[in-house]
């Protein structure tokens, strides 16, 4: 089986080194960093990384929105990490711009009256739906590493995309999956062996594209 080539979208906001290293170690072949999604189908999968702020990130990806929606509909594997997942929704309390609106729902700040913000550290997964591709082989209550201040709130139509929650003052959805479109609120590239397995699962999905 050949190793897949993976593209990482760069919002220009920061460090993609850990992500790139993680992909290399977990079975990707060539990793390319892009700031435009034209020609994305040449690759086997795409990662929307988790560093940056909502509005500046949306600005950089807006011009590629149609391409992204189109490839997602065709089953092209995409993994959104943290902010990269939040952008898939309609809007965010972090910014004023519209999100990519691939999913119905909003992004809201964590409940500051209950918990410290950002939610930073290791927390457990509560797996709420079986048969997930991205969580294949991952046990319930596994530890993963979070750094975020916002949470996704899918609307009724899209609540079935949630495959795992985490409790941080309240239950928040932290893994979503629909066909080959995946999202994690935590950082798999920083989540030790559990995170490595999740990266492998994504790369596996890219292999089957």
């Amino acid at each position, binding site marked *: 089986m050949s190793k897949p080539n993976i593209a990482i979208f760069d919002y220009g906001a920061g460090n993609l080194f850990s992500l790139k290293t993680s992909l290399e170690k977990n079975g990707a072949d060539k990793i390319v960093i892009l700031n435009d999604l034209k020609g994305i189908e040449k690759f086997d999968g795409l990662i929307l990384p988790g560093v940056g702020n909502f509005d500046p990130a949306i600005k950089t990806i807006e011009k590629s929105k149609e391409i992204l929606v189109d490839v997602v509909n065709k089953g092209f594997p995409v993994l959104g990490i943290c902010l990269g997942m939040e952008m898939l929704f309609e809007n965010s309390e972090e910014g004023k711009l519209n999100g990519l609106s691939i999913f119905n729902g909003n992004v809201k700040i964590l409940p500051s009256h209950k918990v410290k913000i950002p939610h930073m550290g*290791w927390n457990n997964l509560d797996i709420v739906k079986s048969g997930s591709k991205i969580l294949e082989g991952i046990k319930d209550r596994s530890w993963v590493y979070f750094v975020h201040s916002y949470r996704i709130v899918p609307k009724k139509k899209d609540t079935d995309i949630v495959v795992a929650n985490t409790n941080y003052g309240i239950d928040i959805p932290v893994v979503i999956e629909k066909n080959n479109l995946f999202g994690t609120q935590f950082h798999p590239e920083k989540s030790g062996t559990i995170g490595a397995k999740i990266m492998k699962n994504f790369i596996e999905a890219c292999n089957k594209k």
Partner: protein
Amino acid sequence: MTLSKRIIPCLDVDNGRVVKGINFNKVRDAGDPVEFAKRYTKQGADELVFLDITASEQKREIIKNVVRNVASVINIPFTVGGGIKKIDDARGILLGGADKVSINTAAVKKPELITELMSIFGKQCIVVAIDTKKNYGAGGKHFFKSFNKKSNKIEKYWFEVLIYGGKEGTGIDAIEWSQKIEKLGAGEILLTSIDADGTQDGYEIKLIDVVCNKVRIPVIASGGCGKPIHMFQVFKETNVDAALAASIFHYERTTIDKVKKYLKRKKINVRI
């Protein structure tokens, strides 16, 4: 369930090599930072902290290579501190693969640096380290009392912020400073007691407790950990988020996984 308490091994790095202290004297060249990073990650460290103690400015470039080499072999969060004076120093470290930078003296000298770093790299990247020492004189804002058995007197003291690796006092009250840096945009506080660090007799619980109640950002306790029970005490008696230790892991007196198993038995929520 909620966040686990984090156990963070800390390594001093000089000229690109890990330096171990034995009886508080520095011994040169104890090993390759990459090997330490791999070992601690495997043992279940929740994060790594590297402090660059290289004195000469010219050799400071070496740390960037260390950061890159370490970041290539680990898959847990990684903080680098020591000698970061300006935005470009932090950028070099973060682009090399560190997740957070820790600033100390520079934050005291130029507090607006915290805000600048926060607005460029995000709050979650910015750790402000506070080195503290008990001061029995005047000048503090938050006073503590303890009974001195030798003199048979009640002593009053406050915690002063020290800079340049604990060599210079600032007259700043550590509790007040912790609140100020939170407002300026620090994402996390690394709170070290220099007195406790010397004794290895347990963390400075009183100070840690007050700081944790005064700020809403995560606090890492540092200084004084000589045995696993010290970690248990600090987690039980304060709301601290993480415990940092150096010597108990370097000397291989114990390992991170053993400490975590012990803490779990004592009902502390740790990642195993």
